[in-house]
């Protein structure tokens, strides 16, 4: 492939003698701009008076500007003040050397010479740039990361009066943890009234979040109308709360087949611990869910159950045994 040789340049003689069409220097645009500014300010302060004055200024200066700009078209000569330079005296019979052939104005720097000023400017540029970058980046990074961890709200859930939970019956309760967020905050728990134990009401309240990877665990057993019990649906502070009667033989997860017994103990499949539970209290005769905690396993059942309780951990995280050392820290949680 041969590179194309450019054709030898043809000097364009005409262009050297072209007339210069410079508009003469003029100050009128400045006045025009001031007039426009006055118009705009007047629109806010006093549209009638000040804007009219501004408009008049703008029109007058625009006319003057137009007169100057069209001077050549109207055949008037343009007078441009020539630029003056002092002549450099040349010696007898010689002409002054062109600027680029005279000696350097400054001596050449020594090889390897460093100028403290340039080094200072380099450092200042990098340092100041880094500082500005840091000042900008830190709040942005904080904005991106911190809201996920700070100010997590604690949500209480009102499941309604105790009388809707007959002793020994299981219900699938669904509720919104945060009604301001809407249906996206709807959660499910399995609730059983264990009766009164040592003068305290006892409930088994199991979260349906699978301890494997967080899928929704389902009750293994019939639910709803077929049981001949009524489904309760009421409006509380936690949106529409529904209580669906169910007779579970255990709980199972549809995603990866994790199985649990009615106390939430893992019986088969990949989960690493028992199902999480809700702590609760009875306030004014109503069942209030407080917060969730994790459970390694449960001994016994019902009101006499021995619950091995741990702070809330994410699905798939061991809370006991040597594997728990992989999760020494938990992010702030309500």
């Amino acid at each position, binding site marked *: 492939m041969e590179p194309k040789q450019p054709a030898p340049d043809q000097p364009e003689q005409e262009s050297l003698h072209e007339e210069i069409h410079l508009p003469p220097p003029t100050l009128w645009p400045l006045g025009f701009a001031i007039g426009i500014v006055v118009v705009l300010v007047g629109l806010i302060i006093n549209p009638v008076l000040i804007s009219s004055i501004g408009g008049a200024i703008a029109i007058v200066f625009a006319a003057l500007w137009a007169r100057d700009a069209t001077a050549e078209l109207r055949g008037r000569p343009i007078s441009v003040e020539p630029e003056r330079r002092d002549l450099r005296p040349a010696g007898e019979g010689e002409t002054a050397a062109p600027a680029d052939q005279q000696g350097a104005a400054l001596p050449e720097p020594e090889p390897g010479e460093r100028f403290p000023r340039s080094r200072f400017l380099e450092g200042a540029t990098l340092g100041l740039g880094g500082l500005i970058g840091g000042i900008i980046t830190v709040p942005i990074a904080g904005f991106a990361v911190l809201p996920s961890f700070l100010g997590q709200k604690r949500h209480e859930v009102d499941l309604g009066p105790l009388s809707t939970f007959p002793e020994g019956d299981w219900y699938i309760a669904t509720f919104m943890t945060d009604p301001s967020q809407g249906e*996206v905050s709807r959660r499910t728990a399995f609730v059983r009234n264990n009766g009164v134990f040592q003068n305290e009401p006892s409930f088994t309240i199991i979260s349906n979040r699978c301890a494997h990877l967080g899928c929704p665990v389902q009750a293994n057993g019939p639910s709803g109308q077929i049981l001949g019990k009524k489904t309760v649906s009421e409006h509380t502070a936690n949106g529409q709360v529904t209580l669906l009667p169910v007779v579970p033989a255990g709980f199972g997860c549809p995603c990866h087949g994790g199985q649990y017994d009615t106390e939430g103990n893992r019986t088969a499949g990949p989960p690493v611990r028992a199902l999480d539970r809700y702590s609760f209290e009875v306030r004014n005769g109503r069942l209030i869910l407080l917060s969730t905690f994790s459970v390694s396993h449960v001994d016994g059942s019902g009101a006499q159950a021995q619950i091995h309780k741990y702070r809330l951990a994410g699905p798939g*995280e061991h809370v006991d045994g040597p594997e728990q050392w992989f999760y020494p820290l938990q992010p702030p949680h309500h």
Partner: protein
Amino acid sequence: MAYRRQPSRAQIRRERMEELVLYPLDWLEERSGLVGGIRYFLFRKVPGDINWMQTLGSAALTAFLVQAITGVILAMYYKPTPTDAYPSIQNITDHVTLGWMVRGMHRWGASVFIILMFLHMGRVFLFGAYKYPRELNWIVGVLILAMGMMEGFTGYLLPWDQTAYWATVVGINLNGTAPFLGPFLAQFLRGGQEIGADTLTRFYSLHMLLIPGGIMGLIGLHLYLVIRLGVTSPPWSREAAGAEHAEEEPVDLRPGLTRPVPRGIAAAQAEPGGSE
């Protein structure tokens, strides 16, 4: 002085048309050097014995560009809020003109992009093209693959149907089981302790701004390294194995993709006298 025929009218017209086309290009080239730069990028010399397998990278790049363009258009109709996300997807699919097609291109193109990246990776591995001096480009490519998968993860949530929601629950919790910092990563991805509106907008922002921006930067670096280091010959290449003529006869190299030399001549010269 040689006799020159008067140019015919058709010739003059063609010259004028050429001038008309070239003038803006010349204008651009004189001021930016962009035309030369693009020529340098597109019409590089490559080994004469490359084959179709070496087009997989360009194919993956094309798939990425399709994702970028269709994604920009989908963003004009999609609404990333828990109440509007799924209805807006239904609207795109059922009502917006050709919405079903653009969404389909984006949805299936995502798989095409990932598959092509894997095929490209396999080609680079089997050709040994990851070896010195191209190790860094392998690393950059792996980062692009990882970010492509992050695109898949974040994009999967956006239809906001049951599959999307629970797949994201599982995906985030999988991240959460990573030792030590896993729980923090999961909470960062969720934008809080529960999946909700913040998770959706966060995934949307990651999916359409942060990760694609990162991929574009890495693709730029990837291509820069390809241009700087050149394309590898296949492992069966005689020239690359040091066969004679290869160094002395630059005829082996195609002068460019536009004007290949006759393959017969190049092949005959590359053959070292029928030694095999």
